């Protein structure tokens, strides 16, 4: 066991935990005031449900001994054999419990990311059941494929901190969900204007802060790779903010605060798969291009006609895909990408992108169908008009 690494990853775990309430604020500020609590709750509840599920069954499915490169076995069911020492720990320098809880924070935030797609119209009960099933049937296998010794890892796919596991998987589910559930009442006819952009900016800032734990912590050690991931994450977000605002200024005339926040998050997403594999200069390039591409990504929904309320597909999907491919282009630390003479790495990344989107979209669709059949995904029209705060939680966010 390495005590410096242990101390560092303990702190990183706490940083990643803080991203989920950060995400809650980021999302809630973009909704209308009658849905502020409903939206916050959709993220915050994940700290409850996903943590418990992860401890009982999620962790073992993701990191238990490999079964056919597809899923983990039940050897760590209910955390048996996950102890204070390094025995069986996938990271030999860290207590097994610490590795487990660090991964738990990723399992918490990933289903929360999806909620942005169906904000303002999904039943809370349906969300709870869908997210629980999703953790078991989508997240755990994806996590096993990439980090638990599954087929993507064996193929040599590079995903430093979760471009496929976290961002593409949640975006594919988000796309399935917003198509399946349908558009919000009045979508396209009335304006759905964010009710509190300072809240969104605060949320984006907390995400940025927590992301240092997410990406640097994914080095699983307090070392140079962690430092590099920290630096590339920061520069990626910074450059993406500039890329987004530049396109926005050209396209619609003014740089907006929502654009600055969105661009930064897009950059953080894009750097997630690449963080430990690229140089700081490459991260600026990846971020800058990522910001521009994600701006185009959010415009896609009006072209294709789906109502992805808070642009999960546009930012996490497009950003995560770009990041995964960019890793295959610009990787130079610990692996080499196309630019450094290894086109095969780019092809591996491409396969992982297609497989992730395909698997996560299809299984999410099936889960949505099951939940819709037995519970019903969408609130009634009256409940939607009254807002989820009152109709789902009997509370209101603001007393005027």
């Amino acid at each position, binding site marked *: 066991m390495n005590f410096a690494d242990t101390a560092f990853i303990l702190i990183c775990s706490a940083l990643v935990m803080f991203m989920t309430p950060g995400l809650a604020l980021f999302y809630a500020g973009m909704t209308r005031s009658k849905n502020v609590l409903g939206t916050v709750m959709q993220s915050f509840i994940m700290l409850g449900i996903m943590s418990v599920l992860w401890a009982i069954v999620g962790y073992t499915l993701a990191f238990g001994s490999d079964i056919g490169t597809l899923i983990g076995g039940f050897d760590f069911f209910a955390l048996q054999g996950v102890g204070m020492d390094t025995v069986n720990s996938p990271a030999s320098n860290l207590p097994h419990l610490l590795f487990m809880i660090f991964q738990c924070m990723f399992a918490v935030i990933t289903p929360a990311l999806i909620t942005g797609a169906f904000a303002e119209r999904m039943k809370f009960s349906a969300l709870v059941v869908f997210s629980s099933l999703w953790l078991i049937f989508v997240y755990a296998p994806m996590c096993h494929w990439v980090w638990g010794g599954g087929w993507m890892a064996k193929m040599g796919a590079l995903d430093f901190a979760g471009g496929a596991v976290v961002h593409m998987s949640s975006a594919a589910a988000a796309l399935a969900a917003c198509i399946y559930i349908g558009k919000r009442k009045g979508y396209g006819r009335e304006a759905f*204007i964010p009710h509190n952009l300072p809240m969104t900016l605060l949320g984006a800032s907390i995400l940025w802060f927590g992301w240092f734990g997410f990406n640097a912590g994914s080095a699983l050690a307090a070392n140079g790779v962690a430092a590099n991931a920290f630096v590339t994450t920061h520069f990626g977000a910074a450059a993406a903010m500039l890329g987004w605002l530049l396109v926005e200024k050209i*396209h619609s*005339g003014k740089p*907006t605060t929502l654009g600055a926040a969105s661009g930064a998050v897009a950059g953080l997403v894009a750097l997630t798969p690449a963080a430990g594999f690229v140089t700081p200069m490459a991260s600026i390039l990846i971020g800058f291009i990522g910001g521009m591409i994600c*701006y185009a990504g959010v415009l896609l929904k009006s072209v294709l006609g789906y109502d992805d309320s808070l*642009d999960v597909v546009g930012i996490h999907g497009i950003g995560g895909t770009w990041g995964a491919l960019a890793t295959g282009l610009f990787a130079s630390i610990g692996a080499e990408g196309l630019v450094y003479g290894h086109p095969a790495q780019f092809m591996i990344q491409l396969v992982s992108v297609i497989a992730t989107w395909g698997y996560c979209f299809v299984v999410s669709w099936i889960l949505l169908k099951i939940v819709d059949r037995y519970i019903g995904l969408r609130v009634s029209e009256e409940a939607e008009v009254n807002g989820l705060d009152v109709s789902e939680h009997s509370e209101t966010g603001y007393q005027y």
Partner: protein
Amino acid sequence: MKKIEIIVRPFKVEDVKEAVKALGVKGMTITEVKGFGRQGGHKEIYRGAEYRVDFITKIKIEIVVEAELVPEVIDAVRNSALTGKVGDGKIFVTPVEETVRIRTGETGRDAI
């Protein structure tokens, strides 16, 4: 007695208040209102999507004065609220049948 209803730009409220106080007007009521006139609304942009906001925030001032004071008040309001740009607002004058001061029971001109 007349009620003068004045719609002005929010940043002009203080100027209007000072101008009509100088004429001896003793009270006024203000409300934040939203609406549109010839100025129309404005454009807001969220993640590249443009929304037209038709209703712009204005302040409505209500003053009740004796009929003979009305022309002076109108002049004072016009002078103090004018920027010359579209969207400066409107003044409406309507008759008031009765006024009662709740504390004393005084009515009419004494109650203004």
